[in-house]
């Protein structure tokens, strides 16, 4: 009886300590999420339950184009970013050259440039009347490259290029950490028994780093599937990334549709979150006791 009472007391104490954090979390995270989910199932005029918002997203030709566009821009960003990051990280891990050590101390710098600044800088260089174009104007008029227009802005190429600018340093950082955990004697003893470079990569380095590569990929996916600033500034009017589409619905006061779009983005993010958690939790066979 007495024991029960003190237990109850300490439980109350814990709740008391946690209460402020819980209330803040409820207020600014959980409540809006629930609110958004509810709104996404509401009829704009009556407020009654409906699947109309979602069925619009999946049947309307324009909306579907935006969804597919978002998926393939994001997937392409992930694939390219991971590919280049892996190459860069391998180079940084296994090269002793001066260039490598310079890159090693500089490669994270793009991450420190604010998104807006970087995107505007990109615009100045890449736009059809930007720096590249003006340099090409200096070439003789008879040359094919005279008045060269890169044609990289207001389409997927520009968005992906900007995404790579931000995500390659980030993914390189994660993959580099994984590669630095692979001791040189692992690679050298593989060489010693007769394995060439390609076999060492596929049999040693890849299996020992793949889970970190997957984690980098999920992070790149999550931050790009919902991106707004970049596609808003240098993307096309059609098709749009979902982040831009969401804002457009919002400003034309279609709040229920906007809620459905954000739930969809949330769903995409959760899928990659699940991949992340699964990769993290999955016990590797060789780490089991």
């Amino acid at each position: 009886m007495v024991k029960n009472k003190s237990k109850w007391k300490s439980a109350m104490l814990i709740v008391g300590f946690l209460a402020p954090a819980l209330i803040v979390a409820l207020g600014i995270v959980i409540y809006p999420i629930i609110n958004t989910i509810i709104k996404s199932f509401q009829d704009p005029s009556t407020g009654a339950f409906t699947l109309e918002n979602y069925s619009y997203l999946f049947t309307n030709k324009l909306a579907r184009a935006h969804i597919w566009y978002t998926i393939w821009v994001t997937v392409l960003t992930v694939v390219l970013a991971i590919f280049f990051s892996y190459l860069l990280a391998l180079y940084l891990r296994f090269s002793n050259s001066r260039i490598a050590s310079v890159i090693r101390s500089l490669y994270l710098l793009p991450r420190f440039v604010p998104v807006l600044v970087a995107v505007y800088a990109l615009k100045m260089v890449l736009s059809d009347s930007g720096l590249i174009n003006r340099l090409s104007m200096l070439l003789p008029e008879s040359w094919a490259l005279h008045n060269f227009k890169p044609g990289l802005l207001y389409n997927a190429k520009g968005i992906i290029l900007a995404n790579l600018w931000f995500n390659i340093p980030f993914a390189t950082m994660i993959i580099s950490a994984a590669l630095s955990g692979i001791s040189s004697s692992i690679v050298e003893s593989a060489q010693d028994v007769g394995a060439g470079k390609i076999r060492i990569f596929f049999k040693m380095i890849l299996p020992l780093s793949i889970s970190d590569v997957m984690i980098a990929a999920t992070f790149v996916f999550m931050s790009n599937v919902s991106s707004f600033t970049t596609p808003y500034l240098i993307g096309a009017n059609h098709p749009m990334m979902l982040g831009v589409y969401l804002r457009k619905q919002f400003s034309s006061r279609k709040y229920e549709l906007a809620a459905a779009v954000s739930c969809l983005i949330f769903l995409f993010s959760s899928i990659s979150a699940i991949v992340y958690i699964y990769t993290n939790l999955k016990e590797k066979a060789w780490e089991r006791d």
Partner: protein
Amino acid sequence: MANAKLEIVNMTKLYNNGDGVKNINISVEEGELITLLGPSGCGKTTILRAIGGFNDIQSGDILIDGRSIINMAPEKRPTAMVFQSYNLWPHMSVYDNMEFGLKLRKVPKAERKQRITEMLELVKMPGVEKKYPGQMSGGQQQRIAIARSLLLRPEVLLLDEPFSALDAKIRQQMREELRKIQTDLNITVVFVTHDQEEAMALSDRVIVMNKGTIEQCGAPAEIYDRPVSRYVADFIGEMNFLQINGKTLAVRPEHVRVRKGTGGELDGFVRTVMMLGHYVEMTMDTDYGIVKTFISEEEAREYHKGDPVAMDFSKSFEY
């Protein structure tokens, strides 16, 4: 020597910072176990990595069976190296670890299995095929690493302090096993260690190294009985050093004979008497420094701190 298995001729390997090894000449017979011995940083690993192909050398040559190997990549050399630690591939089971090199050599599957099973028996670890390196102790891992190298029947086996991370008792045991396997299979081994006891116990010949050069090379007994320099005398076994008239006299404790009183080659007074198990260590103060000797328990009863002692040396060195 025409029939040397491994020959290193005038080899120099310097790193960019000026550290490294200079003018190294080593010749190893077939079936011989030779040890590179020296304190940490004297260049033992540098030589071993040069033989294995992991260090490019500036000058000199390395020959196996009379043929130069310095232009071969590590994966092409007929050597196998066991590193100080982290030898095994952590994501592969013991079986996969051992099979990897055999597969590269296109050994048929049935033969691979047979050879791996035999080798595991040889190193007294049968039945661990399915284990991963992380599930074994350090000693077991090094044993598998050696087994994995032996499996490929290298011309020369290179071992870089393979037992230094193990505790004393296991180290002792592994030494004996290695020596047995090495003589049974008649393989040529270059063994690296900083532990003089290990070097003396294990080797046919010992190469004592000092700051990137070879100080002395010879059979363990030869090095112990006739150290060519003060450095070797100091590094191998125990030695008393006495500064007499500008010369250094070196005497091993077991070559110091003591009796009570005065009138020996050197006289002194008892400083300490220390019981060390089945023998007693006694030190004496003399005009030229402290002298250490070993005596029996019965003898020790006669000596007390401050007693005068006369010493005679049955053998001594001068540097």
